[in-house]
């Protein structure tokens, strides 16, 4: 039954809610039915942790171009992964989209993704941004970098993420909460590079330098810098971009850390994460899902994908948003992102030990 119709029924019922409530509940259950998305070839079903307003324009473009319908629901990664596992071979989902590599790694680890050998995907997505096994592929890059106060911090004072643990930053650092996966990935990559003890020393240094208790989001952390509560913070660049669009005159600027010589600790590159996707193991439309995934890595989709949220495309040579381009180029950390997934739980424990809330 069409929702409008059932709402009409509901209104009628509400005139005498008590006597007819049971009837209404039964009718509702029957009329709304238990149907899953229909099994037609021209359809892809997506579970997405990337939010509606950042993904639907892409789906709309794909449907307009190919006629393939896309059904999707959005939720956090954890519940979506759990749902995939619980549904097992009955799952209606063909594609899983997440906004970080750690969760994709875990999805692959739990065996809910399928291996894909696609020349298109392997050509478009650089090796460190996809699963060595071909179970997931990065679709956009999200750089996590340092933002400084232009009033109080000259670029020369900054160098690396690790340097933010130096006592000279005491009372000058603001950070987002350690409960956000972006910070967990950042710390996981530091464990991969420096080992557990050194990484813990660095994180403890950060905590000792905090000017304010950790913030619930990147924007608040940047606003704290702008308001003079602290001097530097670490954020994903698109949050900076959004803030810059709404308040262009804030005294803030991006700094690209770890840009030193290759092979040195200071030259490991900016920490990047991905928004990415994998075809599910029990996909009902595996070819259609793979076709969608391949299209998402194409020039056309990549430009749209990145510009929707001021992120960076994974495919080389795709044009980026002018505002983003104005921040300049940077050398990115090319350690395979599977490490972030593998070490994420360790990173969470490390941050708990360091008292990073």
């Amino acid at each position: 039954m069409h929702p409008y119709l059932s709402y009409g029924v509901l209104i009628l019922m509400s005139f005498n809610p008590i006597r007819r409530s049971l009837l209404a509940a039964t009718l509702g259950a029957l009329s709304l039915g238990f149907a899953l998305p229909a099994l037609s070839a021209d359809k892809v079903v997506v579970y997405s942790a990337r939010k509606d307003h950042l993904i639907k324009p892409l789906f709309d473009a794909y449907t307009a171009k190919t006629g393939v319908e896309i059904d999707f629901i959005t939720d956090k990664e954890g519940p979506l992964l759990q749902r995939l596992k619980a549904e097992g071979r009955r799952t209606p989902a063909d594609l899983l989209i997440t906004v970080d590599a750690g969760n994709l790694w875990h999805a692959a680890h739990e065996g809910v993704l399928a291996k894909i050998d696609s020349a298109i995907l392997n050509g478009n997505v650089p090796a460190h941004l996809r699963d060595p096994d071909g179970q997931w592929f990065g679709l956009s890059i999200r750089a996590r970098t340092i933002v400084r106060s232009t009033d109080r911090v000259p670029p020369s004072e900054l160098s690396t993420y690790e340097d933010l643990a130096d006592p000279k930053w005491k009372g000058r650092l603001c950070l987002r909460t350690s409960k956000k996966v972006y910070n967990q990935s950042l710390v996981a990559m530091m464990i991969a590079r420096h080992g557990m003890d050194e990484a813990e020393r660095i994180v403890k240094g950060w905590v000792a330098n905090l000017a304010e208790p950790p913030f619930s989001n990147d924007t608040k952390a940047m606003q704290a810098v702008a308001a003079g509560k602290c001097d530097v913070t670490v954020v994903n660049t698109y949050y900076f971009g959004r803030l810059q669009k709404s308040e262009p005159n804030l005294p803030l600027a991006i700094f690209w850390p770890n840009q030193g010589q290759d092979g040195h600790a200071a030259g490991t590159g900016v920490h990047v994460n991905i928004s990415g996707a994998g075809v599910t193991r029990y996909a009902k439309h595996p070819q259609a899902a793979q076709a969608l995934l391949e299209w998402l890595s194409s020039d056309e989709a990549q430009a749209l994908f990145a510009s929707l949220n001021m992120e960076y495309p994974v495919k080389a040579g795709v044009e980026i948003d002018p505002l983003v381009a104005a921040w300049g180029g940077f050398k990115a950390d090319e350690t395979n992102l599977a490490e972030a997934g593998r070490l994420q739980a360790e990173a969470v424990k490390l941050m708990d030990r360091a008292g990073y809330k």
Partner: protein
Amino acid sequence: MNSVLVSQAMPRRWSQWWHSGGPWRLTAGVLALLVLLPIAVIFTGWVQIDSEVWRHLADTVLTGLVRNTLVLLLGVGVGVTVIGVSLAWITTAYEFRGRAALEWLLMLPLAVPPYVLAFVFIGMFDFSGPVQAFLNGWLGPNYWFPEVRSEGGVILVMSLALYPYVYMLARAAFIAQGRSVIEAARIHGLTPRQAFLKVALPMARPAVVAGMSLALMETLADFGAVSIFNYDTFTTAIYKAWFGLFNLPAAGQLASLLLLFVFVALIGEGRLRGKARYHGDARGQRHLYRARLHGWRKALVVGWPLLVLTFAFILPLWQLLTWTWQVVADDLDERYWDLLLHTLTLGGFAALFTVSSALLIAYTRRHFGHPLVRFNVRLATLGYALPGSVLAVGIMTAFAWVDDRVADAYEAGFGVLPDWALMGSVFALVFAYGVRFLAVAYGAVDSAFERIRPSIMEAARGLGASHGEVLRRVYLPILRPGLLTGTLLVFVEVMKEMPATLLLRPFGWDTLAVRIYELTSEGEWERAALPAVALVLAGLGPVILLVRRSATTH
């Protein structure tokens, strides 16, 4: 042979079973068990104990989390009681201009979800917000302002968001007492204050405790508001175990400990309510005498409700509207009709389902109170205290299990997998809401039962009415206000509900709460104001209805 014997023996036992309330017990028992199923799933986490996770949590964060949770519970408990009871007393005992309007205006914060109030509060009052910007411009940079992102801040926000439960129930209790009780106290020489403290308040205690326990269960289950403040509670540990350490069984173990705590607390609540029964003076209810105050007392009595209303509703709504104004041109499209429609439809179905279940269970418990039924009811109303995502996963796992069995049978019969399932159906989602909000509906229905003198039932039964007739012709008319209260409360709660909706909604069934989640999780507070305003406005209708109903029926 056998069948003959059975058919001779059957009618007797059958009729005995039938007449001693068997069908009622059976239905209520089955319902309570169904509701219990997802909670049982969470307890199965204990099958896999990962001692390393436990040791890690115990060594690092657990003590702090338990401390924070207890402080929050204490603070919110005191906060909602003080605000709720004082407002309820002011609007029933005193007369002043605008009282009638305040009576229902004070319920409106119920339409504002705690997570919305939290992000609005931080947006308005922290250093980057308009209030401090104004102070900065006026007094220069060296002004003093309380830290918003603090323990006090969370407690304040939660208290402002949740006091309506206490206000609503306490007010109903004060009205039901009638003035004659207070007058009798005054005749015996008590001052007005003594009459309130020694007579009115103790008589309203069951209602106050019921309201407070709803508020506290919601506090325990809350993840949205506390995470906006980055205030770590026990719920944080549950989510940390799941999302950070990827250990869902450990999350289940933590959640079941939380349930155990709530269970014990609820038994304590039962004790707190005591065995005393108060049946108000029905004659006194129509003509409430309200005192008129003068001078500073009047200022206090008028000023306090206005202050609460300003911070709990007017300022937040104003801030939301300001933000909405900035984005409405870009963001408002025809999809909002669907979001609104889905929100209302789900709320409606869930409210009807939940309240009918609560009615059935409450009636059965009252008249065929088998100890097992009573125990089941206790357990079944625990769902309200569980963090939404954890409960949602419990429900999902239970449904997936059923779907698996059905699919296996279907495949064996037809050779293909069925293209339908419980999971992802509206039915599953409505059921999930039922599990989550049974406590809310049950509280309203049960407290309505509470006011019925047992003699009425006995008289009706004595005159030969069946249980169905008693329920339909005697109870329903008396219970109507209580049932309506339950329906509207669940309706509003479902509209605000986030985690179960996110996980279990069918494709295309996005609601306003889903949109709020999508935008706030990306840190787009201003844009989230549009669905938040729509949600608050949609919730106002039922809330106003709720108050007007409770005003007219007394």
